[in-house]
């Protein structure tokens, strides 16, 4: 398991290669990259800032990964989440899950993303043309997390 919260960017190909390394039983690698869009709820976004709770954020993600491992037959999972100032088209988050079979890899990857978007301690501030605003929690993300029945 590997969880990192960092200001710097990440290299998807290199991260996948590292997670796959030296496990010949891996048959499936599901991954997800979240990207800053230039629009959010119809508003033009130039810059956003992501804040975390250092320590608790990492610990909460590690617990989520452990839960994914208990729910699905997966080998390993990687979560890299950026904080700090991000601009449209910047990568925000990477989740990679390895498994013998694709079903478990996809399910665990989507489960981790749903939790990251709804439960992990991150707060987002958007810089809009008329000023900055802290983003409110979104009910559609709560619904996505609720699917997993926790």
């Amino acid at each position, binding site marked *: 398991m590997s969880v990192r919260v960092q200001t710097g960017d990440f290299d998807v190909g290199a991260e996948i290669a590292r997670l796959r390394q030296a496990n010949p039983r891996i048959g499936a690698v599901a991954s997800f990259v979240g990207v800053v869009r230039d629009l959010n709820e119809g508003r033009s976004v130039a810059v956003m800032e992501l804040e975390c709770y250092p320590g608790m954020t990492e610990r909460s993600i590690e617990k989520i990964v452990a839960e994914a491992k208990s729910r699905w037959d997966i080998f390993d999972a990687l979560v890299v989440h950026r904080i700090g100032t991000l601009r449209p088209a910047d990568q925000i*988050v990477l989740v990679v899950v390895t498994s013998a079979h694709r079903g478990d890899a996809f399910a665990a990857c989507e489960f981790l993303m749903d939790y*990251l978007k709804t439960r*992990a*301690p991150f*707060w987002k501030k958007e810089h809009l043309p008329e000023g900055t605003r802290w983003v409110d*929690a*979104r009910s559609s993300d709560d619904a996505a997390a609720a699917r997993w029945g926790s």
Partner: protein
Amino acid sequence: MKVKLLYFARLREVFQRSGEDVILPEAVADVSALLAWLRARGGTWSAELAPGRAFRVAVDQEMADPRTALHEDAEVAIFPPVTGG
């Protein structure tokens, strides 16, 4: 009892501090009492931490509820609902 308070995101900005070390009166032994103690500061404290406002509390980096007990050197964080990445 000495505890470390941390504030994140909008609450960090409104309270104009990212954290503080406070000495609590003996009667302030759980999260509910701590919130009442902070509200007594008045101004933005009573406004932002009023019952019904959307904020969360963690004690020692675990999500807490009003009855969660405090202890010497506890790390208590108060923050808005998370908004993800």
